[in-house]
């Protein structure tokens, strides 16, 4: 290309002495340290950067920052592939590779650009009309092709090699934006003594001042402010950091990009940090974003926002065009025209207003700019980039270009249609925008949200001096609101006056129509989603009157740039169609994030095994050392089974379950929820929360109890032991522990504050093992202990405190397996020692290690209810526990348990299931049906648990079966709809083993 290099010497804030090599679509290129990918591409003469989303039209670099709609690229390869990245926000590093997306087979020749020819078929609502209406089924067929054709970049499916962290921050004053207003605000809030966090999304502080020629008054002013802020102990500067979300009560989401500007190394790095910042006061000094003006061909490469062209020149030392047309309706673009002319471009400035601002115009003309007032750009032309524009007299009454107009050659067209304050963080938070007629945009209202203030151009101030003064005032005000006194004098920190304000008012121009008042073809409003003025007109004709509906129907403003250049123009055009004012049309809701946030940053460390904290019992290491396999059960990791060589889970648990009924086994039950209940009214408290009575339980005895919820359904179960007159030790299920504890606290703190009872969670304080089997007493008696384990001294449901192997313990004679058994509790720190002591003694007694799989199988054999039956939909009677309910006291859930639907005889009741064919395998979750019927819907009930029972010699199941107890002795079909099997089974009582409970009492 003839104009391959557009880099100028002696301009900008980049390091001309430091070349940086990178590749774009495989081509090697060189940029400079300090470049963005966009500025480096422009410097290398690249104009065509991407193809558009829907029509695959050629697109170039349009903006300079987070508002960029066009220049989306995919960065890097392999696991670090990052699609849909704005080239304008990527800082160049050695070795960066970027490629265009949305083009096939290549960027220059894109086969899908045929879509552009058929654009009238792809208008607003195309997808809805074609695929969501009567022909909806065709979506299934076409989706794949459409996603391929109208997609964005492709994400990688490889694991992210880098890591991310989340931190929490607190401050008095958070200043968002490091431009003239933000710097002034931060300096002054800090001078008053406030703890200040200043957040800037770019690497450098200075904001819009960095778009001015380097080396001037502005740079010296920035340096002075930054020096103060870096020195101050009460200021934290977060650069390369974006505030993406504004939440309630001064909470904000921030993402800090720590490593995105350096070449990804081989090893994992801390790439981004997500902050949850809580600020007492927040100053939005977020600036304003320039908006374009719409006309035909306004999306061609070489069409650019005027401020971006100025920034590329003054910040990055890139002259983006030699023959430049600037089209504006306000004063700000005169600076672009002057600066570009001084840098050597031939510049024509077209001002839609009949009269130009005199000072700015004189300065521009002195720089060599040709100024044409009362004119407009009516049309841009070119194939893969702009080559000419049609300039015509502008009829500002009707917004039309008068015929005939004159064609002018150019290679760059700069647009300024006015400025929109960046107030997303205010509006995300529910702030109500107010339309300012003079600025023709939305500004903060007279009263804004508590805790917020807005400074600078975000507040509609368009001269540097006004921004600085506004920032100073807002900084002091925020510090004062946090209780700090105003500092003395401000002479050391003078304001900055660049006499760059607006002399004359802006003329609202949203769209330039042809002489007949018609919109032109290929006039785009939302460039990223290819939404044109004709799409908006069509949506209006089809009755989409609300701004929210318009947005969803046309997808305007819904791309990754969130319509930063498009939204206000779209509202103005909708207002025109409806014959209303812009405020009457309304405003669409703003939601986080302001700019895209990597999912990795939101996840932080919470990935893979760290997705939530895992809980381990105190004996975990012992289990690991002794070959246990573990399983996740809720938040706990538990010993699952202890395989012998060659055993799988199936073989291991069946062996463990069979052996236990002959010898003695030990299982870790430290996960049980434990609640310490103390106080003179403890017995009354237990009477109220359990269905059964507690008044007569003597000291040294335990009792099984069941709790209901207020609505009458079973809540939880467990044993509670009376340790002394006013002291009880309650155990609850592992899964229910948290909810039971919270509910007991609720009752005592609110409804029953008259009861003298304290409850304390002791789950983490106690380790526990359950030892059971016919040889248990032999084993325990062989361990040095002051507890007498004989049937006389410690009968069934008896409890004793003492020591075992020198460790303090509580022994409670209860069993879950149905064999003679004891639960032994010891303070958590002694858990492993207790386990070791039992294991050491056990070697002489064939001690069996029991995992929870076998433990569960033994409970199925025994027919105890557990979590799979206590589902929140079962009553006491459903579970066969109705006789436990005491009638001579009031307990929680008693009244509502009497509701008609809870007492009907066809409710699903707890039963056992034994396959007619002993070789058949009952599967958990199977549906139960009548023997001669195919099951319909939910059938008669379902299998809640299953296991192989060595005692029965087949698989057995527990289930909830409609009218189940009356069906005992009959058969049902056990239907597995996954494997499509039907197994006839006998309905039995749930108690397959020792139904009278004699073993446990032995």
């Amino acid at each position, binding site marked *: 290309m003839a104009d391959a290099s557009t880099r100028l010497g002696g301009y900008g804030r980049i390091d001309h002495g430091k070349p940086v090599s990178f590749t774009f679509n495989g081509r090697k290129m060189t940029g400079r340290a300090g470049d963005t990918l966009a500025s480096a591409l422009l410097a290398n003469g690249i104009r065509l950067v991407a193809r558009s989303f829907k029509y695959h039209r050629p697109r170039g670099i349009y903006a300079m920052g987070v508002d960029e709609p066009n220049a989306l690229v995919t960065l890097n390869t392999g696991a670090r592939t990052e699609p849909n990245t704005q080239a304008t926000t990527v800082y160049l590093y050695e070795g960066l590779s970027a490629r265009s997306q949305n083009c096939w087979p290549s960027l220059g020749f894109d086969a899908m650009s045929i879509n552009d020819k058929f654009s009238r078929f792809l208008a607003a609502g195309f997808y809805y009309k074609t695929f969501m209406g009567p022909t909806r089924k065709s979506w299934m067929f076409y989706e794949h092709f459409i996603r391929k054709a109208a997609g964005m970049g492709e994400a990688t499916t490889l694991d992210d090699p880098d890591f991310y962290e989340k931190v929490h921050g607190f401050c008095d004053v958070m200043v968002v934006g490091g431009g003239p207003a933000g710097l002034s605000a931060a300096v002054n809030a800090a001078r008053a003594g406030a703890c200040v966090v200043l957040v800037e999304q770019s690497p450098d502080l200075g904001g819009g001042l960095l778009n001015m020629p380097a080396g001037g008054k502005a740079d010296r002013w920035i340096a002075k402010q930054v020096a103060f802020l870096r020195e101050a102990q009460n200021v934290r500067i977060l650069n390369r950091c974006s505030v993406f979300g504004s939440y309630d009560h*001064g909470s904000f989401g921030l993402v800090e990009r720590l490593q995105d500007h350096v070449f990804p190394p081989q090893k994992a790095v801390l790439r981004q940090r997500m902050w949850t910042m*809580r600020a007492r006061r927040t100053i939005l000094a977020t600036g304003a974003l320039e908006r374009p003006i719409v006309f035909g061909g306004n999306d061609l490469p070489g069409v650019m926002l005027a401020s971006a062209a100025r920034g590329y020149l003054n910040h990055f030392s890139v002259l983006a065009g030699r023959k430049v047309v600037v089209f504006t309706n306000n004063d700000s673009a005169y600076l672009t025209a002057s600066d570009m002319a001084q840098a050597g471009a031939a510049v024509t400035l077209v001002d839609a207003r009949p009269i130009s601002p005199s000072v700015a115009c004189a300065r521009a003309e002195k720089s060599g700019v040709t100024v044409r007032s009362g004119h407009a750009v009516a049309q841009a032309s070119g194939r893969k980039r702009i080559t000419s524009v049609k300039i015509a007299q502008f009829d500002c009454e009707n917004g039309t270009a008068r015929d005939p107009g004159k064609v002018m050659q150019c290679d760059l067209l700069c647009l300024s249609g006015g400025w929109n304050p960046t107030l997303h963080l205010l509006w995300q938070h529910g702030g109500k925008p107010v339309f300012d007629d003079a600025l023709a945009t939305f500004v903060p209202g007279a009263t804004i949200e508590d805790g917020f203030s807005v400074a600078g151009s975000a507040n509609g101030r368009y001269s540097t001096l006004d921004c600085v003064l506004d920032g100073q005032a807002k900084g002091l005000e925020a510090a004062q609101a946090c209780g700090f006194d105003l500092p003395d004098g401000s002479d050391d920190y003078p304001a900055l006056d660049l006499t760059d304000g607006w002399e004359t008012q802006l003329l609202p121009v949203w769209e330039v129509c042809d002489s007949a008042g018609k919109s032109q073809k290929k006039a785009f409003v939302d460039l990223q989603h290819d939404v044109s003025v004709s799409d908006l007109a069509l949506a209006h004709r089809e009755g989409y009157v609300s701004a929210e509906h318009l947005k969803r129907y046309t997808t305007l403003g819904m791309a990754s740039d969130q319509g930063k250049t498009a939204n206000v123009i779209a509202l103005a055009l909708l207002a025109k169609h409806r014959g209303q004012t812009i405020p009457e049309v309304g405003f669409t809701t703003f939601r986080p994030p302001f700019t895209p946030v990597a999912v990795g940053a939101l996840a932080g460390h919470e990935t893979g095994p760290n997705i939530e904290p895992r809980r381990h019992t105190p004996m975990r290491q012992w289990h690991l050392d002794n070959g246990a396999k573990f399983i996740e059960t809720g938040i706990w990791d538990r010993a699952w089974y202890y395989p012998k060589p060659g055993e799988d889970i199936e073989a291991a648990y069946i062996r463990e379950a069979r052996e236990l009924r002959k010898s003695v086994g030990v299982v870790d039950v430290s996960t049980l929820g434990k609640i310490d209940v103390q106080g003179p009214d403890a017995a009354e408290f237990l009477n109220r929360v359990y269905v059964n009575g507690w008044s007569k339980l003597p000291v040294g005895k335990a009792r099984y109890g069941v709790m209901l919820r207020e609505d009458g359904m079973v809540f939880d179960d467990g044993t509670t032991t009376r340790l002394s007159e006013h002291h009880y030790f309650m155990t609850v299920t592992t899964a229910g522990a948290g909810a039971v504890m919270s509910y007991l606290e609720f009752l005592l703190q*609110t409804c029953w504050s008259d009861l003298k009872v304290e409850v304390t969670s002791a789950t983490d304080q106690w380790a526990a093992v359950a030892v059971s089997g016919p040889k248990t007493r032999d084993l325990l008696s062989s361990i040095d202990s002051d507890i007498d384990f004989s049937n006389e001294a410690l009968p069934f449901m008896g409890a004793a405190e003492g020591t075992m192997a020198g460790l303090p313990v509580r022994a409670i004679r209860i069993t879950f397996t149905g064999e003679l058994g004891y639960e032994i509790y010891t303070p958590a720190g002694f858990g492993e020692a207790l386990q070791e002591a039992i294991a050491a003694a056990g070697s002489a007694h064939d001690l069996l290690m029991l995992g929870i799989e076998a433990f569960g199988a033994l409970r199925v054999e025994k027919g105890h209810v557990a979590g799979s039956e206590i589902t929140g939909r079962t009553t006491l009677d459903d579970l066969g526990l109705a006789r436990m309910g005491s009638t001579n006291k009031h307990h929680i859930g008693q009244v509502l348990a009497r509701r008609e639907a809870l007492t009907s005889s066809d409710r699903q009741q707890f039963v056992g299931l034994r396959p007619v064919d002993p070789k058949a395998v009952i599967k958990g979750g199977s549906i139960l049906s009548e023997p001669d019927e195919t099951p319909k819907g939910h059938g008669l009930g379902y299998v809640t648990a299953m296991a192989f029972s060595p005692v029965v010699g087949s698989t057995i199941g527990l289930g909830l079966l409609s009218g189940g107890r009356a069906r005992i002795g009959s058969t049902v079909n056990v239907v597995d709809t996954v494997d499509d099997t039907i197994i006839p089974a006998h309905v039995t009582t749930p108690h397959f083993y020792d139904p009278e409970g004699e073993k446990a009492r032995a």
Partner: protein
Amino acid sequence: MRIECPCCGLRDHREFDYGGDALRQRPAHNDTDIDRWSDYVFMRRNPSGLHREFWQHIYGCRQWIVVSRDTVSHQILSVCLASGAHGAGQGLERA
């Protein structure tokens, strides 16, 4: 959201668990009227605007508190301990 716990001070909402409508009246423990219990358990206010609701500071002092919150703006007007503010004969005045 942030909630000013009467015991622990201003804390993040993720330290708390939500407990629902705090204006409902729990019948006396020995009340056997099925309608009153049904009202208590199943009928919850869900206003758009000012609401009084239970929260528990589960990752703090574990106190149950009553928060007066605007469900539209999330503005919190007051927070007090639920203790003694609820239950038989000691109802909260209806906001």
